[in-house]
């Protein structure tokens, strides 16, 4: 069998590689996205006082610390007896929501302007040295400024709600430790252009139009790139609305039939299991009722718009209706439609931020709820790149005795592998050499999922990824190092 390896994947965080095995006829026989790091964090938090967890978990990853901060805090809400979801005070819940939608907004903006738009506007085959926001700055400077300022706006929302940029302490077990001052609120509502929420909504709409315009002209490519049937999982609000902060667990199959019907995520472990495969340190989650082979699922923007029934903000709902109509209301399985879904969520996040900023509950001093102590709690949140689970058990001395984390990128392990397989089959069959176009196609497929491998594997730093091609004797045919 021949084999191709790709490492490192550019613009993907963490350590990983792609291997592609070819048979004697140069047909793609097997593809694998390898993640080669350890999972040491769960053991590290054991023995620590539970109230430290929302800050400690930010050590996992400097890329999505807010998601870990909030998921941990939600799990500890249960432990301090504040329950889940509506157990918090209005100020406590809404401040956290504002933090979360700020995080989603800046994360999605980064993905679109730094990652997706260069591929769309400059071409998938353009010079890789310029196929990033620098290239956008040269050809479309206004767009580059939008990307920078949307990131900046979201970061400032996070700083105002989490208390600081690094190791924020805003969310605490049972609530939040600060409210939003009138000055902070007005800065986001009425700040000088462009740093105000109305401009952010306007730019979110224009980014969506930009994608739709590209899609119109490149339907065949966008619609057929890395397409494969999948189950989809996310939390949704109890009434079926898109809700990135809180809800019940729902999964649908490839045809849209519910296969996990709005269950309480406190019992996620009854419904979700994780498979270990010898060639990857990243586990493969699956729905227990369906089994390892067919129970895998996709999470993230594509999945969320496949599981939810509607979006509870008007502009995003309009965009959602158009998006759903494109697949006749059926689940969307196209990896590159992830960008479309992500931009609809960006718009929704901006609308949510505006609604929250206008809510006077954010100025309340009633910030924390306490109740009867529990010894186990689960927190689930829709992080920008997908569903994130935090599960803790504590003892009588308030020490953490067990921690289990299933991060978004781990949830998307199998879909990313499937996406790579689809692209490899289409582009590498019959080949002995890896071209720049092939390499980038594999990367585009992986990047659509916005993976954070350092988060998934709890590694430190960044590690790019190579492509190596092996023949049937396991000899290297070609290697591409980014």
């Amino acid at each position, binding site marked *: 069998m021949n084999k191709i390896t790709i490492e490192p994947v550019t613009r993907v965080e963490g350590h990983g590689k792609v291997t592609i095995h070819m048979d004697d006829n140069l047909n793609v026989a097997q593809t694998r996205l390898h993640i080669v790091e350890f999972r040491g964090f769960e053991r*590290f938090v054991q023995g620590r006082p539970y109230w430290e967890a929302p800050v400690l978990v930010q050590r996992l990853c400097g890329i999505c610390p807010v998601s870990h901060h909030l998921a941990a805090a939600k799990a500890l809400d249960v432990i301090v007896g504040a329950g889940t979801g509506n157990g918090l005070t209005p100020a406590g819940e809404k401040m956290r929501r504002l933090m979360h939608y700020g995080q989603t907004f800046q994360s999605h903006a980064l993905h679109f302007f730094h*990652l997706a738009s260069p591929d769309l506007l400059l071409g998938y085959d353009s010079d890789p040295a310029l196929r990033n926001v*620098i290239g956008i700055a040269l050809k479309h400077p206004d767009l580059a400024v939008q990307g920078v300022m949307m990131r900046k706006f979201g970061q400032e929302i996070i700083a105002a709600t989490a208390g600081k940029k*690094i190791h924020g302490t805003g969310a605490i077990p049972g609530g939040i430790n600060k409210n939003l001052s009138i000055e902070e609120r007005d800065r986001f509502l009425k700040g000088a252009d462009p740093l105000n929420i109305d401009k952010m909504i306007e730019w979110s709409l224009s980014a969506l139009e930009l994608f739709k315009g590209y899609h119109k002209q490149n339907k065949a490519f966008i619609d057929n790139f890395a397409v494969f049937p999948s189950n989809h999982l996310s939390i949704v609000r109890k009434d079926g609305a898109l809700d990135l902060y809180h809800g019940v667990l729902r999964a649908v199959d490839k045809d849209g039939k519910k296969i996990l019907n709005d269950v309480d995520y406190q019992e996620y472990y009854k419904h979700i299991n994780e498979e270990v495969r010898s060639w990857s340190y990243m586990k493969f989650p699956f729905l227990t009722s369906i089994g390892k082979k067919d129970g895998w699922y996709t999470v993230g923007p594509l999945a969320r718009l496949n599981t939810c029934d509607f979006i509870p903000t008007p502009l995003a709902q309009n965009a959602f209706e158009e998006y759903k109509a494109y697949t006749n209301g059926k689940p969307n399985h196209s990896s590159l439609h992830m960008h479309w879904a992500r931009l609809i969520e960006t718009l929704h996040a901006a609308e949510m931020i505006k609604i929250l900023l206008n809510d006077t509950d954010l100025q309340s001093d009633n910030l924390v709820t306490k109740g009867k102590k529990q010894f186990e709690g689960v927190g689930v949140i829709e992080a920008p790149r997908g569903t994130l689970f935090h599960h803790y058990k504590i003892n009588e001395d308030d020490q953490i005795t067990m921690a289990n984390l299933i991060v978004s990128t781990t949830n998307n392990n199998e879909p990313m592998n499937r996406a790579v397989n689809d692209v490899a089959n289409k582009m590498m069959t019959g080949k002995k050499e890896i071209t720049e176009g092939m390499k980038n196609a594999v990367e585009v497929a992986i990047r659509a999922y916005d993976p954070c491998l350092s988060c998934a594997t709890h590694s*430190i730093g*960044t590690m790019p990824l190579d492509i190596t091609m092996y023949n049937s004797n396991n000899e290297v045919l070609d290697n591409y190092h980014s």
Partner: protein
Amino acid sequence: MKILIYGYGNPGRQDDALGIRLTENIEKWIISENISGVETDCNYQLNIEDAARISESDIVIFADATIEDIDDLAFTTINPDDSKIEFSMHAVSPAFVLDLCRKIYNKCPETYLLHIKGYEWDFKEELSSNAIINLEKAIKFTKQKISEFIKRNRIAK
């Protein structure tokens, strides 16, 4: 003249915090000495919005921990032309930030990177003993550099 000292790293990963710790120390020094025109900032890593941040400064010193084989500290000038394709979509290099700043704001502040050698990268907040020694050297070095920049600016005026 505006000088920005910008440290980055994850303070929960032991010596990865060196850039942040340096920035915190410099901030205290600026306040205690009542030095004007010098600002500090820090984050987990650099990203595209930092192009806007550095566009407001004339001189920028990025401070970061490194595992590279250097002697305690390394102070290098950042050239925006050295900006390379980034392996990570979630963090960018000082040269990338400077290049982006130049392209979208038409500004190119005098920019340096202070690398501070680190040794241990566990899930801890405490620096390793060798890193503490390097941090002290870095603080002294940075104060000296800031003083030189301020003096140079006075002479230029």
